[in-house]
């Protein structure tokens, strides 16, 4: 069955993609963060450039997560540039 997730953007990708959040319906076959990222990169060169794994960190439900982490229905996924607080 299809999964619907919320994606939040922070830092550089949020600014460059002019997007702070969106709700997306995931197509079949997307079940990890890495797969989600690859799928988002299909949106165009600008996306592919912003969302390479090397430039992005992510969290699922407000926990830092690795690219092989599983996504579940209703998850809150955040994509952001490396953190730099303090």
């Amino acid at each position: 069955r299809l999964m619907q997730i919320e994606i939040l953007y922070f830092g550089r990708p949020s600014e460059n993609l002019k997007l702070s959040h969106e709700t997306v319906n995931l197509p079949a076959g997307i079940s990890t963060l890495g797969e989600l990222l690859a799928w988002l990169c299909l949106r165009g060169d600008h996306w592919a450039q912003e969302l390479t794994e090397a430039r992005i960190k992510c969290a699922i439900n407000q926990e830092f997560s690795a690219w092989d982490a599983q996504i579940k229905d209703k998850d809150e996924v955040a994509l952001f540039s490396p953190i730099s607080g303090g």
Partner: protein
Amino acid sequence: MSVSIQHEDFDAGAVMAELRATSNNVGAVVSFVGLVRDSSYDEKVENILVEHYPGMSENALNKIIAEAKTRWDLLAVKVIHRVGRLGPNDQIVLVATASSHRGHAFSSCEFIIDYLKTDAPFWKKEVTQQGGEWVVTKDSDVQRMERWNTGK
């Protein structure tokens, strides 16, 4: 509340007074204030923009504080992180700790700011005459954080 994420400036002296007032057994209050520097890699910084992940940032800071409390005897802790547009010399962050013993207050204060730098979802964009640049996690900050786990 031990954690505050806010646009408004803060009064470090008032926070220290608050921590001091928690108990007559407080022997040491240590505080760290981080400020906006006016230069970054030799470029003049006009201002910075600080962003955070609401909800996760508070949780991350509370987790760091909880970990500090398992490592040291703390009587009170306060962390304030500002967000929004800030100029040179503006205060960005405050970490203050109170303990009966100064060693505990010093170590926990440094531990909390070190982990804040690597584990709390805040972002800084520095604006110079060349434009804006999102700061990335510094290797030196990762190394400082890792010291706490290797005993170095």
